[in-house]
């Protein structure tokens, strides 16, 4: 089955291409169904192929597809190892659920088939990213998911804000890719190849902590920061919420944004010998986690809360991989995929049921109206808040424990993580309480209702995973760690501290989470803490004006520079010079005609002087003088 793993990519790709051309003819429900079935098929193929790996000691296998760029030492081939298998399962699994959800959510949209074209394209691209066996193939997938993301964010392109958001996402990602690209240049210059085999196989020949590996890893980080919406390139992700909600769930929560984490985990061989870079990764992650969590508190739009929450959670993952706790990072990636997809889909169901209303202050008391959405979202809420035994607890706790366990400055990062955990619990609770508890605050004419089955079914499935997925890697039974072990076999990986410490740490984080929930409860449910109706924290809500800052410091000056380049330097300077030369020739010509007076005597004089000059020249040259 491993030999057929290319089918995992080929099926959704086929779907994308087929629907691109035939989508309109196939029509509304069927195009969605076809797309969904293809992704489900991919999932099962991947599952079967991954079965041997569950037994453990699965080394991974390269599947050669075709020769591609020989001079870069790269073929188009796939790598099927535990890490990529796990990612494939997440992508296809969550992807399949979201496809199902999408068939309901997009019901009646005028470009329904096109939506599934793009979704299938995304799945295929993401699978190229995770399955490729070289940095080049990863880059291909990396860019292609950017394309899918662009297409899906600006799916409703008639809305100028959606179109602008899509462009912004692509461009900001490209800034990250710029770093990625330079990293690839150095990798190629160093190893003479971009394939994982060569690079990781020879990574041990590099000096530990040396300039080369540090440069490579830092530049890779730039790429990861762009794709995974970390500081300072996170600004595109909140705007990306302009896309349809299933897109937000799939791409901007569960899968694509975790590509940065995957990339760092995949490059563990390099990062593990670049302590400085790893420290930077963790620091970026921690700061992002905290920063985004703060901003999430101030949001009124339900999807934007989740967007910042995603950024924040990705920060945790960066912290983990920065701390060389790759398994923990990937573990959180996995659990986060479930609960965050669930949250988004739940939010989508709410929005769907509220006829497009996204302001939480215009919701309230939806518990009864949407019981399934409510019930499933509660699971996710508890999971992200870190309440045991839900999935988020196990993964987040492992990250915090390992970070703490590394000691030294890492403890500070742990503290940041802990504060973030409290904030996370608070803002998620705020979301839940504002949405589902309290008095209805919705506008007139809105009649909230439960969503169709196609939308609730995925919610339920995801809720199951959000609740239970944590169990695959508990301190008691670290199955995931065993599963992934071969992928990080030769790498020094950080482990959780032994003994009593983890228990204490877990207790602290649970307490902190409960504290956050409690504060939110008193504020938004019992109203025992002062709260004004429709509270507005402008500064926080605007994300501390970072967008504005970028606009004023980068976009506007950039535009000014471009304008002066185009309309002054180019038009007047460079081209002015060209036209100036032409004009000068013309003026010279006019000047030359002045000698042509029409007077025959002046002609004679010219001739005479010419003759004298010729003779004088000859005489001087001939040595007569």
């Amino acid at each position, binding site marked *: 089955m491993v030999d057929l793993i290319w089918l995992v990519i080929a099926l959704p790709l086929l779907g994308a291409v087929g629907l691109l051309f035939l989508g309109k003819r196939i029509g509304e429900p069927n195009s969605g169904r076809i797309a969904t079935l293809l992704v489900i098929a991919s999932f099962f193929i991947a599952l079967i192929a991954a079965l041997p790996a569950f037994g453990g000691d699965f080394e991974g296998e390269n599947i050669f597809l075709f020769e591609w760029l020989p001079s870069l030492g790269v073929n188009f081939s796939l790598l099927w190892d535990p890490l990529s298998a796990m990612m494939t399962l997440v992508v296809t699994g969550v992807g399949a659920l979201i496809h199902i959800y999408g068939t309901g959510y997009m019901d009646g949209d005028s470009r329904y088939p096109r939506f599934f074209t793009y979704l299938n394209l995304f799945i295929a691209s993401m699978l190229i990213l995770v399955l490729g066996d070289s940095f080049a193939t990863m880059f291909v997938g990396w860019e292609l998911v950017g394309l899918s993301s662009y297409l899906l964010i600006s799916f409703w392109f008639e809305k100028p804000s959606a179109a602008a958001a899509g462009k912004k996402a692509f461009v900001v990602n490209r800034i990250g890719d710029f770093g990625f690209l330079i990293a690839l240049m150095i990798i190629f210059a160093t190893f003479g190849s971009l394939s994982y085999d060569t690079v990781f196989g020879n990574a041990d020949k590099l000096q530990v902590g040396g300039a080369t590996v540090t440069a490579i890893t830092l530049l890779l980080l730039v790429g990861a920061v762009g794709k995974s919406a970390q500081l300072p390139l996170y600004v595109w992700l909140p705007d990306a919420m302009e896309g349809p909600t299933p897109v937000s769930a799939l791409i901007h929560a569960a899968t694509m944004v975790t590509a940065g984490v995957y990339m760092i985990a995949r490059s563990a061989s390099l990062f593990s010998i670049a302590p400085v870079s790893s420290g930077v990764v963790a620091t970026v992650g921690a700061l992002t986690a905290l920063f985004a969590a703060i901003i999430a508190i101030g949001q009124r739009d339900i999807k934007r809360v989740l967007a910042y929450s995603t950024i924040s959670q990705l920060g945790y993952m960066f912290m983990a991989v920065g701390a060389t706790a790759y398994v923990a990072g990937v573990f959180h990636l996995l659990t986060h995929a479930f609960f965050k997809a669930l949250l988004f889909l739940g939010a989508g169901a709410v929005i769907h049921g509220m006829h497009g209303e996204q302001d939480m202050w215009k919701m309230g008391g939806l518990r009864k109206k949407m019981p399934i959405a409510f019930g499933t979202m509660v699971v996710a809420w508890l999971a992200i808040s870190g309440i045991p035994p839900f999935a988020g607890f196990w993964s987040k706790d492992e990250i915090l424990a390992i970070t703490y366990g590394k000691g030294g400055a890492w403890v500070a990062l742990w503290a940041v993580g802990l504060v973030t955990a409290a904030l996370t619990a608070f803002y998620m609770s705020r979301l839940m309480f504002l949405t589902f508890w309290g008095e209805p605050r919705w506008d007139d004419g809105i009649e909230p209702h439960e969503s169709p089955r196609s939308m609730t079914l995925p919610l339920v499935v995801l809720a199951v995973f959000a609740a239970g997925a944590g169990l695959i890697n508990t301190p008691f039974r670290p199955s995931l760690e065993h599963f992934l072990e071969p992928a990080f076999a030769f790498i020094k990986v950080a482990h959780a501290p032994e003994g009593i410490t983890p228990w204490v740490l877990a207790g602290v984080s649970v307490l902190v989470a409960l504290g956050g929930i409690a504060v939110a409860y008193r504020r938004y449910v019992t109203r025992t803490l002062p709260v004004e109706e429709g509270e507005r924290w402008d500064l926080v809500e605007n994300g501390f004006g970072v967008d504005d800052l970028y606009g004023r410091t980068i976009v506007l000056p950039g535009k000014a520079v471009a304008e002066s380049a185009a309309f002054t330097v180019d038009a007047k300077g460079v081209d002015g010079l060209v036209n100036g030369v032409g004009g000068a020739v013309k003026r010279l010509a006019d000047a*030359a005609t002045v000698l*042509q007076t029409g007077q025959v005597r002046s002609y004679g004089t010219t*001739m005479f002087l*010419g*003759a004298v000059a010729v*003779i004088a020249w000859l*005489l001087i040259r001939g040595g*007569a003088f």
Partner: protein
Amino acid sequence: MGNIAFLPIGLEVALLVGAIGVLMVAVTMGRSSRDWAVVAGAAIGVGFVISVRQWVVVGESGTQLAFGTKGADGLAVANQMVAMDKFGALGGMILMVVVGLALIGSWQMVKDLGSRGAEFVALILLSAAGMHMMIVSANLIMLFIGLETASIALYVIAGFLRNRRGSDESAMKYFLMGSFASALFIYGVALVFAATGSTSLYGSTSIGQFLAGNAMPNPGILLIGIGLILVGLAFKMSAAPFHQWAPDVYQGAGTGAVAFMSTGVKVAAVAAMVRVLYIGFFQFYDDWSMAVALIAALSILVGTATAIAQSDLKRMLAYSGVAHAGFLLIAVLAARVSLDAMWFYLATYAVSLVGMLTVVTVVAGASAGPVSIESFRGLGKRSPMLAAAIAVFMFSMAGIPGTSGFVAKLVVFTAADLSGFRWLVVLALVASVAGLFFYLRIIVVAFFEDSDTEETPLTLTGPRIAIGFAVAVTVGLGLWPTLLLDFAREALPHL
């Protein structure tokens, strides 16, 4: 003075007989221009055949000198006056082609002139005879006579349209400046005679022999003489700064006359210059070559620059002719390593220019004086064939590949580079880019702009033949230059 060989001067004789014949026919048989055409055509045809015959004879039995006598005391009374060599033969062929084309193309002007047309034709034939004399002369005095024969006829031709204002101005300017230049030339000859005791290019008492046999510690007089001869010939080819007559004369004279005037004289002057400088004064190559190079550079610059500012087509062509005189002077320098390059340039430029001027006669009238460039507006639509011909000629003069003009520049510049004049090549090529401004302008006017004027059909047979031939030669030699180059390689002067 027994067996006078007629072959060396056969071409001159044919043209003279033709000229007289035309006049006789006009007097005796009537005014039909058709009759004159037959006679003139026959003369030119015979002239061409004689040139071919000369070529063959020279090929079989070598070059020879003719028309000289010796006194009883063995001193030369007069050295051989005419050289029969392939140089002169090829010059004759080119001249005959050019004259023929010019006459065919401007025959309308002959018709317009009515009874005076015969005189016009006769003058052209006489002038052509003088030009060929310049090419074949083996003696500077002979060269002077040829030059004057050609020039005096041209003065009349320039002023032939008596009833049109400007024609007289044209003739007067040409006459005064031409006479001045002739005086300078012949004074140069006199000084050379004073310095070397000879005016002959060949023979035991030639200039070359004298220079080879005598070291000249103080060559001042000789150098002045060379300089003046150079000036006289440069004037004829309208090289700067001896060019100022040309635009005014071209503009004032009837277009039909300009075709002959502007081309024939250039052919003759360049060929004569090569013979005089290389045969007569080769020992002073280092001196005169630099002078020629400087005149060439100045001509190219002045001609190109001034042409850009013109709005009259004939003036523009005159200035472009100045620039081409510069290129031809480079060809003269290049003749040291490659004479075929010089011939090629000369022949193709002359044919293109005649073709172009024939187009002008069709568009603006054969007897027109000033011809505004604007009169070509929209020609691409009105008369695509004519416009296409213009494009070919203009591209050729600009030196764009695919035309003979490019090959001409290529071979000349390669030879000039070989002779060590790289700076001149660079200058010439850059200037030829600037030259595009005015060559392209005509194409732009003709093709890119619309006009409401009626069609200008090309109905006349004469211009049709002339233009067609010129286009064929320009494109044909652009693609198969060997046709002429291989031929011209043998066209060396008698040594």
